[in-house]
C-alpha cells in the first residue's frame, strides 16, 4: 500500500484499503475558519447532539478576515467564539493568538505524522508535508465530523512524483509545485493523492514541503503527501518540545510494491524559477520566458509562503534595498511567533527600510478579502496559491504567482524578474 492508503486503512479499522473503496474514517482533527465554520456551526446545530465528538479535536481559526474587516465578519467570528465557549472547544484562536491556519497548526503541534485531518478549507492538504493524510472538505462535512468524529472518504488513486537531480539557484519548493501543476494541469490530479518523492525532496526543508503540499489542491488533488524522514522527525521533536506536548505520532511509508496510477519523473536541473500567469495556476512559464510584466503590488507570505524560511529568503534579497517606487509590497507572515522571530532576527527592520508593509497574520489580501485589495487594471505578483479572476480584488485585476525569491526581486525591479538581475 501507499502511505495514503495505510493511513486511511488505520483510521477505518481495516488491514488494507484499495483505491475507489468508500470508507468511513475516524478523524484526528477537524478544522474550520471564519468563512466556513459559521456555516458548519449552523448545520451542526441541526443534527441535534449536545456535544462535539471531542472538544480537543475541533479547531476553530478565524484567520480569513482577521482583524475583523467589517460588521458582518465580526458577527461570523462572534458566532465561532460563542460556539467554542458553549461547547468547551479548547482550540479557538482569539486575535493575538491567531495565525494563518496552515502555518499555525503545525507550529502548535496540532497536526502530526500519521494523523487523519479534515478541514473546511481547501488548503488543509498542507499537513501532508508531515506525512499525515489531510484534505479539504466543506462546511457540512465539518459539521458531521464535529458530531460523529468521522468522515466518508473515497480511497484515492495515487500519482507518484519523483524529483530527480538537484535544484537550480533560486528554485524553491514553490517552483517545483508550480512546475508540476503547469505540467499536469489544474485537474491533473483530480480526486487523486499526490505523493512527492525523489532525491531532491529528501533534501527539502519542512517549510518548503509545506509549500508544496499546500498547493496539491491546485492540481485538483485530494491530498499531497511526503514520507516522513529525518527532517520530519527533527521538526516534530522540536515542535513537541517547544509546546510541551505529550502526543503519540506514527510514521508511515509506502511499500516498495505499492501500486500507483501513474509515476511522473522530473529532472530538476531543467527547472527554473516559475511564474504562473493569470488566471490559472497551470499557466506557468520559466522566469527566462516571462517578458516584461510591470507590477502594482507584490505580496510575500500566506499559508503557502509565509513561514520563517520564506521571510528569510525575502529579507536576504531586500536587505539594504528599496522596493520600486511604482508598486506596493505587503509582507504577510503566517503566525505571531514568526513575527516575533522576524523582529528578533532583524527582518522586520529590513522590510520596513525597504518600504514594505508588514501585515498582521491574516488571509486578507490572498482572497481579495481586505488588507491589500487590487483595483481594476492592476497587476500583482504574489507568493500565494491562486490567480483566478478577481482572486485578489477587482475582477479586472491580474494575479501572477511565484516563489519568494522572484517576488522579492520583482518588488525591487518593479516588474517580474529574477534575483539574478539585481
Amino acid at each position: 500500500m501507499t502511505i495514503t492508503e495505510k493511513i486511511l486503512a488505520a483510521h477505518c479499522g481495516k488491514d488494507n484499503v484499495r483505491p475507489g473503496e468508500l470508507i468511513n474514517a475516524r478523524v484526528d482533527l477537524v478544522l474550520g475558519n471564519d468563512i466556513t465554520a459559521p456555516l458548519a456551526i449552523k448545520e451542526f446545530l441541526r443534527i441535534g447532539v449536545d456535544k462535539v465528538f471531542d472538544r480537543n479535536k475541533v479547531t476553530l481559526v478565524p484567520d480569513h478576515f482577521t482583524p475583523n474587516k467589517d460588521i458582518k465578519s465580526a458577527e461570523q467570528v462572534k458566532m465561532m467564539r460563542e460556539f467554542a465557549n458553549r461547547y468547551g472547544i479548547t482550540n479557538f484562536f482569539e486575535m493575538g493568538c491567531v495565525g494563518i491556519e496552515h502555518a499555525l497548526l503545525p507550529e502548535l503541534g496540532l497536526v502530526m505524522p500519521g494523523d487523519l485531518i479534515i478541514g473546511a478549507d481547501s488548503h488543509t492538504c498542507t499537513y501532508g508535508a508531515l506525512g499525515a493524510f489531510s484534505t479539504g472538505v466543506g462546511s457540512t462535512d465539518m459539521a458531521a465530523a464535529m458530531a460523529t468524529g468521522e468522515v466518508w472518504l473515497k480511497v484515492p488513486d495515487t500519482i507518484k512524483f519523483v524529483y530527480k537531480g538537484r535544484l537550480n539557484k533560486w528554485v524553491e519548493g514553490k517552483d517545483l509545485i508550480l512546475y508540476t501543476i503547469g505540467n499536469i494541469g489544474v485537474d491533473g490530479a483530480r480526486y487523486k493523492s499526490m505523493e512527492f518523492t525523489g532525491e531532491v525532496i529528501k533534501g527539502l526543508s519542512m517549510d518548503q514541503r509545506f509549500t508544496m503540499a499546500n498547493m496539491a489542491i491546485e492540481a485538483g488533488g485530494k491530498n499531497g503527501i511526503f514520507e516522513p524522514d529525518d527532517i520530519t522527525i527533527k521538526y516534530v521533536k522540536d515542535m513537541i518540545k517547544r509546546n510541551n506536548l505529550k502526543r503519540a505520532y506514527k510514521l508511515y511509508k509506502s511499500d516498495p510494491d505499492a501500486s500507483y496510477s501513474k509515476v511522473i519523473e522530473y529532472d530538476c536541473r531543467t527547472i527554473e524559477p516559475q511564474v504562473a500567469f493569470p488566471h490559472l495556476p497551470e499557466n506557468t512559464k520559466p522566469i527566462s520566458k516571462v517578458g516584461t510584466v510591470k507590477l502594482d503590488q507584490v505580496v510575500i507570505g500566506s499559508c503557502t509562503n509565509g513561514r520563517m524560511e520564506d521571510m528569510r529568503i525575502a529579507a536576504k534579497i531586500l536587505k539594504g534595498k528599496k522596493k520600486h517606487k511604482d508598486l506596493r509590497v505587503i509582507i504577510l507572515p503566517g503566525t505571531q511567533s514568526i513575527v516575533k522571530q522576524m523582529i528578533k532576527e532583524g527582518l522586520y527592520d529590513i522590510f520596513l527600510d525597504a518600504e514594505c508593509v508588514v501585515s498582521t497574520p491574516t488571509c486578507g489580501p490572498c482572497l481579495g478579502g481586505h488588507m491589500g485589495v487590487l483595483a481594476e487594471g492592476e497587476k500583482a505578483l504574489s507568493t500565494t496559491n491562486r490567480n483566478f479572476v478577481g482572486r485578489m480584488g477587482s475582477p479586472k485585476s491580474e494575479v501572477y504567482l511565484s516563489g519568494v525569491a522572484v517576488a522579492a526581486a520583482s518588488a525591487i525591479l518593479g516588474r517580474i524578474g529574477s534575483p539574478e538581475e539585481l
Partner: protein
Amino acid sequence: MLLGKAHKFGNNIDTDAIIPARYLNTHDPAELAKHVMEDADAKFPGKVKPNDIIVAGDNFGCGSSREHAPVAIKAAGISAVIAKSFARIFYRNAINIGLPIFESPEAADGIKEGDEVEIEFTIGEIRNVTTKKNYKATAFPPFMQQIIKAGGLIEYVRKKLHG
C-alpha cells in the same frame, strides 16, 4: 422531473467565480444568491430564473472549499448543474447539501446556451427538449445515493444518530 433553461460555462469554473470571496462575510443563502457566478458572468445573477440549469465543462467548482458556492447556486433557484467533470470538494459539498449535480461529458457538449433541458433526477436521465436528444449521467455509488435520498448529509447523520 424538472424543466429549465441551460446557461453554458467553460472549463475550470472556480469557486471564486461562483461566489467571490468579497461576499463571504456572510453565509446567508439569499445574500449569496445575489452574486452567484458574478465573476464568470456579471449579468448572470440578473438573468437566472428558477429551475434554470448550469451546464459546464471540466473541473467545475475547482479551488476553494467554500460550501457557499453550491449554496449560492441552490439559493438562486438553479435546479441542477451538469458538467463534464466536477472538482472534488465541490462534488462532496453539492451531494452533502442536496444540490443535484450530473456528470455527463456528452450532455455538457450537446446542450447549447438557452436550450430547454429536462432531468429525471432519480435515474440521471437528461433530455435536451430543444434538440430532442437524451443523455445519461454517471450513476452515483449506492452510499452517495443514500445521502441524496436522505436529503443531504445532515439528515443522513441525524437518522444514523437518532434512528
